[in-house]
């Protein structure tokens, strides 16, 4: 192994804030920090790391507000009339649906969608080394992709410059949350979070229950109006024009995705639609059976969260790491911070910061 070619920089010398220099003694008595407090992605955490949300979650209150207000009006105005004229089951069914919708929505919004933690400094260095040694010096090194075989089909893995790793298959980097998410479907502004491997089933149950709820409320409203006055359009035409059709459209689309084991991301990009010429490119992840695809996506085992939000940071990395990662501007600086965090006994051959070397392949 080559000798170390980087100089270890004293982290305290970099800190521009006067407070950190004045209170070195205070650092030692600081409470142990949890990992979510130093999380590099653009997320917000609540309840001491138990709940996670995207930083851009502006529309979630609107979604909740619409659901609550619509349901509230339904319970206040339609239910008394319908209980009197039809049956007491109507508010009960409505209540159950409403609770299911809200629970699914909150579950979708506050669950980790399957965020992949960023590579450690050692892993990043190991990958750099492998990429460097694999290309020859006589031609320009290949761009940062790796081809692998999945079920006898060639799939390209891309290198993520932010997370410093080759993305596993079906993983995509969300620019809004600045995280790589496994089985990335899409970033949904209505729920204020990405939809990925761990919360897709909650998202699906949210849209299915929302469709039922809106159809139910609309049906009850039409019944109410019809009972009060005999005038009115035909029921079918009314449903066609109702606001319930939007969640129904979404439900139809996602049912198709679930049945074919696709993500929204793959469907939009046409990853498996065979547009790539003569070579056969079907979806390598499908089980070729609609029922199996549905069961696996919606009822498969629940994978754990990989980001360990409530774990404790090692004490020597706790504050300097967080301050460094947040205070340094510019795209190349997080990579500088990564090298600063490498333990002193680890010698890694380093010619120049890896990001600059591969800038031309972006």
């Amino acid at each position, binding site marked *: *192994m*080559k*000798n170390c070619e980087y100089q270890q920089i004293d982290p305290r010398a970099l800190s521009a804030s006067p407070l950190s220099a004045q209170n070195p003694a205070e650092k030692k008595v600081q409470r142990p920090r949890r990992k979510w407090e130093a999380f590099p992605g653009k997320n917000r955490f609540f309840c001491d790391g138990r709940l996670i949300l995207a930083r851009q979650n502006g529309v979630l209150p609107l979604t909740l507000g619409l659901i609550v207000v619509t349901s509230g009006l339904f319970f206040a105005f339609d239910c008394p009339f319908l209980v009197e004229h039809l049956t007491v089951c109507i508010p009960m069914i409505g209540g159950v649906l409403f*609770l*299911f919708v809200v*629970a*699914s929505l909150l*579950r979708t919004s506050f669950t980790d969608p399957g965020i*992949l*933690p960023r*590579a*450690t400094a*050692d*892993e990043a260095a*190991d990958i750099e080394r492998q990429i460097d040694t694999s290309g020859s010096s006589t031609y320009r090194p290949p761009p940062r992709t790796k081809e*692998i*075989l*999945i*079920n006898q089909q060639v*799939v390209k*893995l891309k290198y993520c410059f932010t997370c410093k*790793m080759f993305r*596993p*298959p*079906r993983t995509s980097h969300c620019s809004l949350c600045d995280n790589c998410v*496994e*089985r990335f479907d899409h970033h949904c502004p209505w729920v204020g979070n990405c939809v990925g491997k761990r919360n897709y*089933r*909650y998202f699906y*149950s949210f849209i299915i229950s929302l469709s039922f709820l809106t159809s139910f409320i609309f049906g009850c409203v039409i019944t109410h109006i019809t009972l009060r006055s005999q005038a009115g359009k035909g029921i079918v035409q009314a449903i066609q024009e109702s606001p319930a059709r939007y969640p129904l459209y979404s439900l139809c689309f996602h049912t198709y995705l679930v049945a074919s084991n696709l993500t929204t991301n793959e469907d939009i990009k046409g990853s498996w639609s065979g547009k790539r010429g003569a070579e056969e490119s079907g979806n*390598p*992840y499908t089980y070729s059976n609609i029922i199996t695809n549905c*069961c*696996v996506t*919606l*009822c*498969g*085992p*629940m*994978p*754990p969260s*990989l*980001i*360990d939000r409530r774990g404790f940071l090692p004490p020597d990395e706790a504050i300097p790491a967080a301050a460094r990662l947040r205070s340094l501007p510019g795209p190349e600086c997080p990579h500088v911070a990564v090298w600063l965090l490498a*333990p002193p*006994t*680890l*010698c890694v051959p380093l010619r120049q910061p890896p990001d600059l070397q591969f800038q031309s392949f972006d």
Partner: protein
Amino acid sequence: VSSKFHNLQEMQHTASLVTKVFIQRDYSEGTVCRFQTKFPTELDNRIERALLEQTVKTLNSYYVEAEKVGGQSYLEGCLACATAYIVFLCMETRYEKVLKKISGYIQEQNEKIYAPRGLLLTDPIERGMRVLEISVFEDRGSSGSSPSSSMSSCSTAR
């Protein structure tokens, strides 16, 4: 091997970290969690191939068990759906139970096989299930060995 450690604590106090070897994921069967059984050349003179391969194969079988789509996982999924997923607040999922077993297995393997050879396995869950990290230690007491000659000094000691 020039370094003989009797337990993990001794290793962590007297050893210095030389390098880390990463065993990457094997995606040939899809997105299921599986690690490559290819033996890393850096560990040629540190551990027998069969031992490491056995460890990786056992880990892979644990992950297969955790991610198995079958009767029990469907039951868990349907029950969770019927209770609006509130049941997950009080119940541990099957995956989490298997992860605990894996943790125990790695701890046991470290104590029995890897620490005496100056190696340490890190549970993949702590690395986002991306890699199986093997830390290679060298005894600080061994004289004059700079990091660049650690490998050759190992091979001559054998």
